[in-house]
């Protein structure tokens, strides 16, 4: 589904990614672990389409298309979703209308009919309730007055409604208490099918207690230093990142 070859990214003359190779097949869940500044978030942003300020070399293909030639919205329409580490707040734009318009844009490109407003409302209520987000949040401005944990849940809520093929979850676990983490993990697990894939970016092994990845990669200094199975996360938890650098 996603193939990254020798991806090099720099910003303001500083190299952030120094040749990343990664292949994610349909139905797989990959986890990328690494310390602050190792390049994890930059990798997520580059896949999702942030271009401003970055100099990018290498290749990324998604379902056979050259991803680096596509605008962020084209990538979203092709099935890529990114859950942001620090989602922005948009007061004045109700979450429900934001999500309806996003869903309509994406459905239109899939050749699907836009969802009937009543059906959307039912779907949104059901998904919000599942994640433990209050119904009133749908009428509120996007992330307006949401706590850190609620913002993270809202990202997963949007992912559930938009049904992407590849979900990149950038530190979805940070700032979540144990109960919320379990809920978010459950929502992710229930979204896993043979067709869609996940890239989970995290500092800690904690979330991987609830979501079992097929592959774990460790990023150090802009490169993938080690790749392995789920057991690699446990090794990191035990020995830290130090012994890899």
């Amino acid at each position, binding site marked *: 589904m996603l193939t990254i070859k020798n991806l090099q990214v720099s910003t303001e003359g500083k190299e952030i990614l120094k040749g990343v190779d990664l292949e994610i097949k349909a139905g797989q869940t990959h986890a990328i672990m690494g310390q602050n500044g190792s390049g994890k978030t930059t990798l997520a942003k580059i896949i999702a389409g942030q271009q401003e300020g970055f100099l990018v070399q290498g290749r990324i293909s998604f379902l056979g298309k050259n991803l680096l030639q596509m605008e962020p919205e084209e990538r979203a329409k092709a099935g890529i979703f990114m859950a942001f580490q620090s989602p922005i707040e948009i007061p*004045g734009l109700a979450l429900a209308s934001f999500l309806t318009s996003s869903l309509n844009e994406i459905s239109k490109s899939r050749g699907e009919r836009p969802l009937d407003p009543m059906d959307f409302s039912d779907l949104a209520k059901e998904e919000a309730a599942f994640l433990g987000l209050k119904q009133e949040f749908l009428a509120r401005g996007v992330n307006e007055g949401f706590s850190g944990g609620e913002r993270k849940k809202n990202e997963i809520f949007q992912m559930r409604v938009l049904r992407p093929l590849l979900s990149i979850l950038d530190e979805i676990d940070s700032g979540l208490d144990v109960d919320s983490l379990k809920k978010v993990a459950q929502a992710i697990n229930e979204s896993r099918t043979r067709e869609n894939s996940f890239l989970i970016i995290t500092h800690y092994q904690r979330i991987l207690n609830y979501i079992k990845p097929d592959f774990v990669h460790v990023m150090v200094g802009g490169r993938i230093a080690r790749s392995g199975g789920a057991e690699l996360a446990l090794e990191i938890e035990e020995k830290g990142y130090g012994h890899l650098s």
Partner: protein
Amino acid sequence: MDIFLKENEHRDCFMPDGGGGCNVYLGRNSSLRFFTFNLGGKSLKNELNVVFKGKGARAELYGLYLPQDGQVIENETLLRHQAPSCESFQRYYGILPMGGKAVFNGKILIERKAQKTKAYLESKNILLSPDAQMLGRPFLEIFADDVQCTHGFSSSQIEEDEIFYLRSRGHNLESAKRILLLSFAQRNIDKVADEETKNILCERISRFLSEKLEAKN
């Protein structure tokens, strides 16, 4: 134009479209919402003076200005807090496209007897072009010692990370900008109680923004 609010009276007022001057006198426990919305048209100046005469009065002032190319929209507010325990809240938002210019001068005067006054003043402006111009600043004169006063003034472009967030959710660049600007304006429009007026304002602003964003591309 002079407006007097009696004890416990509440009123929503709009600044006339062509600008001008307005003095509002607030009686005890009265409350005022005053809207100054300007969208395109000729250059103009709005002067709004609010005098807090009675204890416990409250005023909310919402401004929205979208000057077009070559137009100057000026807003000047003077809030005279003369009685204790009054509250004033001012939020002036501007969206300035190419060639648009706006001025906002907000003055708050808190007299010695106006103890326990709470005053909030915010002016936030989004510049869509390097040649759009925003001038202004808050002026505070405080003679009472037990007051809470907050003020802020900012001018900036639309944030890149906000645009990226919307684009990552399937909106193209122009629509992302339009959504962000409209929701910014919506915060003040939402304070209007009348639904029909609100809808008309939203439509007009949406059309104005579409024109300006298209003209830029």
